[in-house]
């Protein structure tokens, strides 16, 4: 057929070639094995590729929909912050970049806060959206995380954070670095109020986000294969000029090195979150005096079993084979919903959350 290629004009030639890229809006290529999956099916499968269980990145709104009962939640507005305090430009004006990201994602910045119920239990959650300038932590995102945490304290609700970020937002310079202590103050307030703070580390969680609120949770849950680190692999490779170990800085590696409590398949995530929040919350009605007495036990509830005979290598191997951890579960095996178990009179006013009914489509 070579002679044809030489004589036919390019436009017609492209019709003759058999391998054609599928249209972008219908298929999505798996980041794990390269197979194509139809986007609708992917969404129905919680953005997990059926071919090899590769976990695709999830936008903030879909994240919250997957978390809350019936996918319903109310958006909690984050306070406005000064835009572009440094008058920054890097080839393009920062304000233009912001505008583009807002149009693309229909978000105000990289963090979306939602309020709703999880198995009947009131929850405040925040999700970072990697599509919004790499989920980077700037003033708006920092303010949103802090606001979400404060909101949880006000509502006496557990707080769940879905981290996804390339790190600090360079365009805001030092003010972006200052979000590390600011968000940490939020974590401390949750802690002082004895409210569970669960971090779900998703692909990727890096830089200043990992080095502040994302590593300070009571329980750390990572999604399979997620890159979680402080300095990214590229930076490290440039510094030490050698090949990095396989699986370096991936969720399973962090599990083996004691940085996360578990690696959980997305299909099991909701059940796991619900269980953790329920058990942690079950001690909450107590007086502060009793809660103090429980302090020793809390460590164990977090899953830190010291003296485990398994060494890191074995743990990592197990996690990687991971049938128990990364296989989808059948419905009947799932954690039963415990709506009947919602406690009343734990310092809260006990009335049903008005926010729970609003649609999460705002």
């Amino acid at each position, binding site marked *: 057929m070579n002679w044809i290629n030489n004589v036919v004009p390019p436009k017609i030639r492209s019709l003759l070639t058999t391998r054609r890229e599928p249209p972008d809006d219908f298929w999505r290529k798996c980041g794990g094995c390269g197979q194509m999956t139809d986007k609708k099916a992917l969404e129905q499968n919680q953005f997990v590729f059926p071919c090899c269980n590769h976990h695709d990145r999830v936008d903030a709104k879909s994240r919250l929909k997957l978390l809350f009962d019936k996918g319903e939640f109310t958006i909690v507005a984050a306070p406005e912050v000064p835009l572009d305090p440094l008058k920054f430009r890097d080839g393009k004006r920062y304000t233009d970049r912001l505008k583009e990201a807002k149009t693309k994602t229909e978000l105000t910045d990289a963090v979306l806060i939602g309020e709703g119920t999880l198995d009947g239990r009131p929850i405040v959650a925040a999700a970072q959206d990697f599509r919004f300038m790499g989920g980077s932590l700037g003033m708006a995102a920092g303010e949103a995380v802090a606001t979400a945490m404060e909101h949880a304290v006000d509502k006496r609700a557990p707080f769940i954070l879905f981290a996804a970020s390339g790190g600090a937002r360079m365009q805001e310079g*030092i003010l*972006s670095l200052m979000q590390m202590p600011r968000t940490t103050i939020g974590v401390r307030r949750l802690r002082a109020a004895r409210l569970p703070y669960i971090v779900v580390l998703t692909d990727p969680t890096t830089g200043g986000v990992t080095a502040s609120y994302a590593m300070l949770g009571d329980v750390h849950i990572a999604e399979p294969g997620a890159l979680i680190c402080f300095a990214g692999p590229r930076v490290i490779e440039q510094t030490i000029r050698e090949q990095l170990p396989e699986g370096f800085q991936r969720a399973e590696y962090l599990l083996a090195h004691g*940085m996360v409590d578990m690696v959980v398949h997305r299909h099991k995530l909701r059940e796991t979150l619900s269980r953790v929040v329920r058990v942690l919350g079950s001690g909450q009605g107590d007086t502060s005096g009793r809660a103090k007495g429980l302090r020793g036990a809390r460590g164990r509830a977090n899953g830190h079993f010291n003296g485990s005979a398994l060494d890191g290598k074995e743990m990592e191997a197990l996690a990687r084979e991971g049938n128990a951890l990364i296989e989808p579960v059948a419905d009947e095996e799932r954690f039963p919903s415990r709506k009947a178990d919602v406690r009343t009179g734990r310092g809260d006013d006990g009335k049903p959350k008005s926010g729970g009914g609003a649609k999460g489509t705002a």
Partner: protein
Amino acid sequence: MRTYIEFEKPIAELEAKVAELRSLSSDGSNVSIAEEIGRLEQKAKQLLAETYAKLNPWQKTMVARVSERPHCLDYVGGLIEDFTTLAGDRYYAEDAAIVGGLGTFRGRGVMVIGHEKGHDTESRIKHNFGMARPEGYRKAVRLMEMADRFGLAVISLVDTAGAYPGVGAEERGQAEAIARSIDCCLSLGVPMVTVIIGEGGSGGAIAIATANRILMLEHSIYTVASPEAAAAILWRDKGKAIDAATSMRITAQDLMDLKVIDEIIPEPVGGAHRDKAETISRAGAAIEKALKSFDGLSADELREHRAERFMKMGRSI
């Protein structure tokens, strides 16, 4: 023999000429040469003052990094009596990139922690160029908690390009160590004063700089990422470091405008490295003033002050 920074070339030339004339005039007392020396010296001095009065952000970056600049242990030597170094994180290792210990500062017991870059090849390697691994931050946490228990004020001296990006550091939880250190700073019921003495680089700096009062030397810098790293991220080109330094607002003066720091400590003419003793004594006076302002505050008030300081940051620019 003084080393000169690139932009100091004209000053170097003048000073070289002065030195040359000096060696000529030493064998005979020629009046005209002596006059010429005086004139040139005056000129060099003036040029130095003029140059340093209007350094651009990139030039400041170079000044902040100059190896003769006084480092953490110089300040400790000049300001702290009975200094007793404490080592180790009690988990894994001793990391000399962060040094720390007990001592007396103008009559009060203090805990000092700081990044040490080292002053020659051997000490630079020992201190890993001031780039700490998780053990460094965990040691900092240990010392800060000890200070809190014994009611000692914490003085932290920041001088790092950033936390060390290595396989081992990541493996042992660099991010977690930094996060815990920020958390620990916020938990202190004793006053904490930070001085950025050279480079304040990224998470590696803020880990021990979440203080009640943050002071900064006139020609030091404080950034979210080193200009080179920021250039690599924004332009995918390390060569754009000058652009990054210029647009990121990293100088003490910029940070004062942004209300991120509280006070600028003026450096002697020609930078801290031209008069170490004077720099150290100025820093000492500023630290003393800062610590005095917190006298009489309760532990809760100090914690509240610190949290408030950071929470209002950026809300009014």
